[in-house]
């Protein structure tokens, strides 16, 4: 029987995993893969907005650790037509939707279904 860890533990692991993927593993597939792994964690009472919050927290930490250079922002602004804050906002929305959908789908279809017998997740 798997030993069930408290939710806070899994939240922390999820946060660190997404942080690691986004700072060090610069491929979209890794990001989606990392999000799916989070969906496998046996977190009780998980909801989609909690995945979203974890990703947003990881993104905030990424930006704190590696805030975009001013010149980078202004140049991408000039090329894309989006202002810096809007650009960061769009990036946050895209990343959050991707992470949330990937994690929630795995959580609903795999974790809750397959592990239902063993884990009292809901």
């Amino acid at each position, binding site marked *: 029987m798997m030993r069930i860890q408290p939710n806070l533990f899994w939240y922390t692991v999820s946060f660190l995993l997404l942080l690691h993927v986004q700072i060090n593993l610069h491929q979209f597939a890794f990001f989606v893969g990392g999000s799916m792994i989070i969906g496998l964690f046996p977190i009780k009472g998980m909801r989609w907005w909690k995945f979203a919050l974890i990703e947003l927290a990881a993104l905030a930490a990424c930006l704190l650790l590696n805030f975009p250079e001013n010149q980078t922002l202004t140049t991408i602004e000039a090329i894309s037509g989006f202002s810096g804050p809007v650009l960061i906002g769009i990036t946050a929305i895209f990343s959050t939707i991707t992470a949330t959908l990937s994690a929630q789908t795995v959580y609903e*279809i795999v974790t809750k279904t397959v592990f239902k017998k063993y884990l009292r997740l809901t």
Partner: protein
Amino acid sequence: MLKKSLLLLLTITWLWAIQQRWGDLPLLARFFSYATSPLQVDSRFENSTELRKTPYGEVEVGYDSLGVPHIFGEEEAAVDFATGFVHARDRLFQMEMIVRVVTGRVSEVAGPAALRSDLFWRKFEFDSLAPIWYAGLVDSMPQITSRMEAYAAGVNAYKARMPYGSLPLEYHLLGINPMDWKAENMFYLLRYMSHVLTYSEDDLKASEIKSQIGKPLYDFWYPAFNRQPHPIYPDFSMSDSVLAALVPKVSEQLVSDGPHSYPLAYVKNNDELSLGSNNWAVQGSKSATGNPFLCNDTHLQLAFPSTWYEVHKSVNGRISRGFSIAGSPFVITGFNDSIAWGMTNATWDLVDFYQLEVNEGGTQYQLDGQWQDLQAFEARIPVKGQADHVKTYYRSYFGPVDTASNRYLAVNWIGLVASDEARAFDGLEKAQNVQQAFAALQYFRQPPQNFILADQSGQIGLVTAGLACLHPLPEKGIRWGVTSAQKIPFVVMTTYLNSFNPMREYIYSANQEHVNHPLSAHISTRYEPTARGKRITEVMENTPAFDRQALASLQTDILDVEYALLQARITAVAGDYAGYFEGWMGSMDTALVAPTLFYNFKINLVKTVSRYLGSGLTLPPSEQHIFNGMALDDSLPMAAGWISTTTLAQEAWDSSLLQLKDRFGKDVSAWTYGKFHQTSIQHLLRLPQLAMPLFASNGSNRTVNVASRLPSTHAASMRTIIELRPEGPRALLLLTGGQSGRFNSSHYSDQVHDWLSGGYHEANLSPKFDANRYTTTIRFNR
């Protein structure tokens, strides 16, 4: 169950949708996911001290305050490895784009806008030829290919462990990852430069123009000879028998069967012929220090990043210093402990088009009285956002065949010739005197260059190295390709065109004709104008002893000597505006009005002549030929008969004034040259956000300090002033733009101001690695 199914469907749809190309948008999954976002692009890596592994010997690299790497190692391969590493670090995207251009793979990442370029390059099949050429070089010159291998390993070593923040922004914008680097990529670089410096489809246009204006007018306006030559080798002589032996004895025939047009032909028009590299060397007897000097400034498209990349290499204490091109381990123009070298383009005609006689099915062509198979091959070009583009080409004895204007045209271009310039540059890096440099240049084939040489012992020399195509019939146009002898072979000219330690104590080249001899017409039918050559000669003759300052002055000289040629014509038509020319000698200075009046008059003179010759003339006669005619003749032949040069001058002047009034208003004092003549430095991808806005610049397309086109996009891309002292060289250098190709680097454009103001930096030639002198260091250990 329904909820789970819908969720799965939504997730799959989302992941699919954001990985599709939507119009011109970048790949959303990549651009807007933080994991792969361009927001992570930063320049902090540039100042970090690094320790790296190498399969070769130990190397230390120190970057100075201009971002120039100083590379010190005991073994040559180790230094080449580090050279590849620093090139990739600073110019990765530029290197990739050159390979993509020459292999016809730009549309794949840039979309349909690049398809024309890809269609041009694919017919040459360089992606198949380069590995074959490289394999041949591995067998014949393993010591050279080992350098190329080490260099490629250095590029790939950087790429393999590149900090994500240092991935150039262009990769993010195009949504691609850097390609693996191969040793044979240097062949692509050479073909790219050959294309820039030798390729044109003027033959197609010449054929078209002959059908438009008739042969007599064509012969007058597009002559094989310059009426007032000012050659690079004024003392050249060649006996008739040697010339006869050099020029193939073949009956060349030009195609002249009725009207046809080539609207897509890549033509070198007057603007493009206004390229202007200069190089010269003066002997110690003509220098203030008693030591020889060598100077070079190469004229190329101004771009971010620049074509050139400054580097200082030291292999076991033996230095090679100067300008390299990212993609090659060699210093291309620069100096070592004992000699200096530099180059200008030879501007020869090295492209021939042959029309084939093809059977009705388009499957065979005539060669020496027999039908030969046209070998068809398909080029499948992936195009971003569209289906693959498929085009059929053919292989023939005369070269790759394309169809245009219902003709089968084979092209024979020097780029298709196998060559090993790497051997020449390896030899130059190691030469100890002018004689050894000359020996190394025997291996140089393309693009043909005028190499200027000087050595520590006081010798100077000029060698025009490379292949030429000597046509028995010196006339542009499409040639018939029916017999195998009609394909004119390329011949090495290095032995014939050279001069060492001339009596006049100096030697120079400025892209003009090489000799005042019948040979000239056989090599090229369209040299560049002689104005710069005349000005350099004038300064050389009038300066008894050169020092660095005098040489720098000549490199930034802005006197247009064509004014002297046209002065009488202008004075006759200027009327109320004549006052602006009083006391003016042709100085193309941004603060003056006279240069604006003069330059725009010249432009309108060309337009006026072209208009009288026939509408829609896409390849106007050379400006030099027009101006000589205007200065020396009373009337000139046109489509409707002879027109007086006074009439032509007046019409050109009137239309010029109208244009200037429209553009700048009626207040003539506002027509300063700085408003008329501006320069722009563009980005490789033509992204205005990464370019430099227009700025006023001195000079013209005829001054030694060249700035050609309006707005000017081509000018001196680097400058060197090198003194060969007995105790070792010293040099002033300048790179137009900056060392780094990364927009957020402090070395992206930090030398532009110096370039504009005529500044240089002293080349640091410290013999040993000294960490205190550098802003950033990289150490490589086994």
